[in-house]
C-alpha cells in the first residue's frame, strides 16, 4: 500500500492503495465515483473510458501508480466542459440509450473526439469510437449524436 495524490475532476484526492490497483477501482470503490464502469478488465470494451489530460484512457488497465500528475476527468464532471455538455445534450436529444451501461464510456470517447476534431467525418467516428462496444447496438444513434453535438451534417455518408 502507498499513498497517491490524484487530480480527479479538478479536485485533489489522496488515496491509500496498492500501486497496481487500476484507476477504475480507485475511482469506483475508494472515491465513490461510480459513473466509470467495469466491463471487461482488459481494455476490450471501453466501458471504463476516462480522460487523462483530456485524452482517452481505459481506467481498467491504468494502474493508479501510473496516473501521476495527469488530470483525471470522469463522466461525473464531463458536463463542466462546453464540448462535454454538448455531447450530453445530443445524447439526450437523440435518446441514444438502451441499457445505458456503456454510454458513460461512449460520451467520454465522443467528447475527446470532438474536442480534438470539431467536425469529425464518418471515418473519424469509426476510428475514434471502435474501442467502445455497445452490447445493445446503439451505434446508429451514437453516430447521429456525435454529429449533432459537433453540429455537422447528420447524414451517414458511408457506402451503401
Amino acid at each position, binding site marked *: *500500500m502507498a499513498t497517491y495524490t490524484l487530480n480527479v475532476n479538478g479536485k485533489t484526492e489522496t488515496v491509500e492503495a*496498492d500501486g*497496481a*490497483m*487500476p484507476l477504475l*477501482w480507485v475511482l469506483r*470503490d*475508494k472515491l*465513490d*465515483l*461510480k*459513473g466509470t*464502469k*467495469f*466491463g*471487461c*478488465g*482488459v481494455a*476490450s*470494451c471501453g*466501458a471504463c473510458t476516462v480522460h487523462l489530460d483530456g485524452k482517452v484512457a481505459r481506467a481498467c488497465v491504468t494502474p493508479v501508480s501510473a496516473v501521476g500528475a495527469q488530470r483525471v476527468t*470522469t*463522466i*461525473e464532471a*464531463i*458536463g463542466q466542459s462546453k464540448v462535454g455538455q454538448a455531447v*450530453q445534450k445530443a*445524447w*439526450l436529444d437523440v*435518446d*441514444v*440509450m*438502451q*441499457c*445505458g*451501461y*456503456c*454510454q*458513460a464510456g461512449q*460520451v467520454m470517447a465522443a467528447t475527446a473526439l470532438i474536442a480534438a476534431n470539431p467536425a469529425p467525418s464518418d471515418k473519424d467516428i*469509426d*476510428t475514434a*469510437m*471502435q*474501442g*467502445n*462496444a*455497445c*452490447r*445493445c*447496438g*446503439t*451505434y*446508429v*444513434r*451514437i*453516430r447521429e449524436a456525435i454529429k449533432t453535438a459537433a453540429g455537422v451534417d447528420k447524414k451517414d455518408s*458511408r*457506402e*451503401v
Partner: protein
Amino acid sequence: MADGNIVTSRRFFLFASAAGGGLLLAGCVTPPDTTDGAPAVAAEPAKPAAPPINMDHYVAIAPDGTIRLMAKNPEVGQGIKTMLPMLIAEELDADWSKVVIEQADADAKYGNQIAGGSFATPNHWVPQRQVGAAARLMLIQAAAARLNKPVEEFTTEPSMVVHAASNTKIPYGDLVADAAKLTPPEVASLKMKDPKDYRIIGKPMRNWDSPKIVRGEPIFGIDTVVPGMKYAYFEKCPVFGGKVVTANTDEIKALPGIVDCFVVKAGGPIPTKMGLLDGVAIVADDWWTAKEAGKKLKITWDEGVSKDESTALYDKQAADLAKAAPMSNLSKVGDAAAALKGAAKTVEASYTYPFLVHAPLEPMNCTAHAKADGTVEVWAPTQRPDMGANGAFGLIQQALGVAKDKITIHMIRGGGGFGRRLDNDYAVEAAAISKQAGNIPVKLIWTREQDVQHDPYRPGGYHNFKAGLDKDGKMVALTNHFVTFGRPNDAGVMTLLASANSPPQEFPANYVPNHSYDQSMMMGGMPTGPLRAPTSNAVCFAYQSFIDEVAIAAGKDPLAFRLELLNLPVPTGANRTGMNPDRMKDVVRLVGERSGWANRASLPKGVGMGTAFYFSHQGYFAQVAKVKVDNNGAWRVLKVWSVGDVGSTIINPINAHNQVEGSIVDGISEMHQKITFDKGRTVQTNFYDMPLLRMDYAPQIDSHFHITSFNPTGLGEPALPPVLPAVANAIFAATGKRIRSLPVNQNELRWS
C-alpha cells in the same frame, strides 16, 4: 421532466386501494414460459388468484400536481420503465412534464414481474391503461362533487379536470385529497380514450433514466452501496457443476485486505446448472483486492461427469446421429418420403450454429445481506425475481432455507439482460456468501471471464434438411432431422436442454403439402438458457437460409418464392397456429419495396442483397440486408431494411426503433461469435475472443413499422431472428458461397 429525487420530499395521496369489478392486476396471468424452453427442474408454485387492481400501487398525486407512477417490471435496456408508465399516464390524462417514475421492488402485489419473452406490451396494454382510466374517473368524480354537477359534463386536459359549461378548470393536485377517498370504479364503467386523442402514447418519450446515465449517476446494480458492505469474488469449477475437494482458504485469509475466505457448498435447486454451485468465496475490503487474491487460490476439484466433453466430440456425435435412424418423429403431414422420391428435383443441406454467450456489458453482480434475524435483503439487477425454479426468490428461499416473506428484493437497473438475468445464480451466490461471511452485507461481482465461462449458453444445433421441388419449381416436401442436446431428468429420461428445441411446426411446416420433423439428442453437460429471441435466434438462420437455397434451386426470386410459400393452402392433416400468413405477406412485400429489391441485379460483383422473414413473440418482421464482400473475404453489412408489424400502436416510437436497430446489430454480432468447449469447460474468455460488433461494422438501418388493427405486441426480441439469414443470403448473392455454418468464416468467402 421532474427529477425522481423530489418524491421523498412531498406528501402524496394514494388512491383508495382496491377497485371493484374484477379489474385484473397487470400481468397477473402468467404467460407460457417460452422464454425458458426447458422443463422446469423444480415445480413452479401454484399461481395466486388474480387480485383486484390496486391503484395505490401505481398512482400517487401530490397537491402540487406531481404525479408519481410506479414502473412494475425490471429494466434492462428494453425501455419498459418508461413505457408502462406512459400507458397509465395516457388514460390518466397526465401532464407528462409533471410525472415522476419510480422503480417498483419485487412484490407479489404487482403480479408477474419479468423481462422476458417480449410479453410486457401485450400483457399490459389493457390493464395499465385501466389503472390510469380509473384514477382519472375518480378525479372527475371529485370535481363533479365539488361543483355539484353531473359527472357526464366533465372532461380532462393534461392534469386538469375541465367543466366547460362553467368555464372551470381544476388541477389534479387540487382534487387528489378528495379523489383518494372515493371508492374505485367498476371496470365496466371505464371509458378508454379514442386513440386519435392520445397525447402520450405514440409520441417519442425519452427513456426516463437517460439524464442520469449521461451524468454518470450510480443507478446500475453494480453501483449499489450498503453501509458496512464488503466485496466478494467467487470461483467455481471450470467444468460445469464440479465440486470443491480442497482449497487453500487459510492461506488466502492471511493475505492483506482479505476479510474472509471459505468454501461454499451447492444448495437448493440447480435448474439448468444455474443455481448455487460449489465454489470458493473471497471477501475483502474492496473488490479488486478480492479478485487479485483469487489468482492465489489453489483448489482441487471433483470435475464430475462432464469433464471429457468437447465441441469436437459434439460435432462428431452430431454427424453420426444425422446418419442414424432418428430417435423420435415429432411432426408428420402427408408423406414426405414418397414426395421426395417423386420430386423433379431435391435439395439437401445441413446447417449448424454454435453455442453463444449472453455477455451483457454489466458483468453479473448482486449485493445481498443475509441478516442475523433471518431476513434477507437483496439488490439485484435481475430480469426475473419470481418464485420459479430460476427466479431470485425461488433460488434464495430454497438454497438458504428462508421463507419468501423474509426476503426483500430490490430490482436495480441492469446493464443489459438479453435473457442472462432470467437466471439468478449470481443473486443466490451473493446471499449465500453474505450469510456464510457472518451475516455481513456483500457485493459480489463476477469478472468478464467468469461471465463468459459460466453462462446459461444459447445451445448449438444441427439441422439436416431435405426438400423436394416439382417440375414447376413448387416446394412439395420438407424434412428435417434436428440433432440437439439433452440430459437425463430425475426419472432418467433424456430431456432437451433449455432452449435446445427447434419447433416441429417451424415454417414452412403446415404450408408445404408433405412434411416430417425428426429429432435426436446427445448429452450436453453445460448450462443453457434463453438468449434474446430464444430458439428463434437459432432456427431462423437454418430455416430461412435453407428456404433461400431451395428458391435458388427452383430458379425463383427468393422473396417471391417466400410469398409463394405463404400463399400455399393448408395441407390435409396440417394444423396452423401462431403466424397469420396475411400479416407476414404484407411485411415481406413492403420490405421488398423499401429496399429496392427488384433492382438488385444491377449490383456489382461482391455486393448482394438477401432477405428473410420471421414470426416470433407475436411480431412479424421481414428484412433485407445488403452486404459487401471484398475479394479477400472481408465482409460487412452496408444496410438493413426492416419492416415490422407489431399491431395498431407503436407506443414509444423513439424506443421502438432503437430496439429494432439494436436487434439488427445484435444479430450481425452473433454471426461473428461462438462458444466452444474443451475438457468440459468453455474455451473463450473475454471480448477479444468473443467479439462484439463495433461502430465501424454497424450498418445503416431503415426501420419501418407497418400499422395494422391488431393489439400491440412487444419489441425486445422479434426484430432479431431474420437478420442472420438475411445477411447470410446476401453473402450468397454477393459471392455464390452459401453460409451453412456460423460464425461466418471469412477465409471461405474469398473470390476473384
